[in-house]
């Protein structure tokens, strides 16, 4: 089961060319409101449709900082993804996420990619979760031909980064067992 509530937050409500750090900080309140009002589990799509310029300073205040808080678990079972007309538009945001050692899913018209910092083994695992829509660590370990513990580490980190959703499905001995879900709309 991976039904998620969804809400779209349009950045162009603040202008087509944004902006300064101060403007990004002011805009952040609206984004946090949208995030908190989203029923769990929820996916906030931050849309750059209609935006022509997204400066690094504005993007850091509006998107990267809330995203950093999201990864601490502060907002519960909620996620953020970016929708952009082109990947180039999100380049400075990617740089800011990279500096913060974060990673965020970004959709363009034709494909999805990861902004920020994500090592290739993690990317490989993420690709597989998205392809399968949902999986267990065992399934993924087998498909990737890696050790179960290694896979657990990878999916755990991907879940921490809010790139996939983790749901407890029972107990395997003394430990909880999880299924991992793509946060991309199927």
């Amino acid at each position, binding site marked *: 089961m991976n039904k998620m509530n969804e809400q779209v937050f349009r950045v162009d409500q603040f*202008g087509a*060319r*944004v*902006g*300064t*750090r*101060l*403007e990004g900080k002011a805009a952040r309140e609206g984004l946090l409101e949208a995030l908190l009002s989203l029923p769990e589990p929820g996916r906030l799509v931050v849309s750059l449709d209609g935006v*022509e*310029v997204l*400066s*690094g*300073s*504005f993007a*850091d205040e509006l998107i*990267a*900082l809330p995203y*950093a808080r999201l990864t601490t678990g502060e907002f519960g079972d909620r996620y953020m993804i970016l929708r952009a007309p082109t990947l180039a538009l999100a380049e*400075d945001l990617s*740089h*800011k996420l990279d*500096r*913060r*050692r974060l990673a965020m899913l970004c959709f363009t018209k034709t494909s999805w990619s990861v902004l920020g910092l994500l090592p290739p083994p993690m990317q490989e695992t993420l690709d597989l979760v998205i392809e399968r829509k949902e999986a267990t660590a065992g399934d993924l370990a087998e498909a990737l031909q890696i050790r179960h513990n290694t896979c657990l580490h990878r999916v755990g980190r991907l879940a921490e980064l809010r790139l996939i959703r983790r749901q407890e499905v029972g107990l395997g001995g003394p430990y909880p067992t999880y299924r991992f879900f793509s946060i991309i709309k199927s």
Partner: protein
Amino acid sequence: MAEITVQTIDQILDVLVSQDTPHLDIGAVDFIDPYGLLLLALAIRHRSLNGSAPRIRWPRSRRVRSWMDAMGFADQIDGFPEMPGNPPPSRSTALQPITAIAQEEKVSQLVNGFDHRLSERYPLTKQSRNALVKVMLELFQNIPQHSNATGELSDPHGLAAMQDYTDSVFLAVADMGIGLRRSLALREEFAQLNDKSALNKIVFDGMSRFADPGRGGELRRIARLVRKWDGIFAVRSGEALLYMDTEHGDVYDAPFFPGLQIAVRLSRHVFGIEPSPVDNESFIGFNE
């Protein structure tokens, strides 16, 4: 001295800042770039605020004087004399006159103004306009955010100006604030750096006065972008000057001047504008 440019302005700063009773002779100057113009205005102001106003022999060139007028130089400097018989300056010779940058709330509006002036003159591609807008947003907002980070100045005198030439577009941004070294020194681990090291830390390592990793890195990104576009990038702060062109990039010793001053010169190819085959009234930089 025939030109006041990124390459020569330090000779003027040496005279204006270090001499007790400065006497500046720039009568033979027949070309000034926007970076030179902003630093000239700031250096004269600095001298007037910290001692006696310098005696200056102004350029004799009518074209240069007319351009200085059109760039609004007289609004920056008390005592910039009118040239006898000079026609009123035509604003068309100046792409973007000297503009004060003080409040962060006004930065986006100012950037749009600069962009508007450039796009009025040239049919730029949206992509190139947007790239320059992004550069201006970061450079302009640095002034209210960092130039007076210690809160000790009544006015850091932030300025920006832009001019087009036969082969390039030139943007200059300058202030008389605390400069990179003192800004970075607000972090204890960088308190002992000199101007050169501070400039290196900020432009090459992407550091800022904030420990927050999301802050800083903008000058490094702009430097890389300008280099990718085969442009020229100069950053001056305190006693250090970083000069980067398509061939080289290094930090040099420079005579002390407070604040931060930046020059970005980009080939017109970047904006999809073909180089002009002949000079016309819109351009300066040639002998009369």
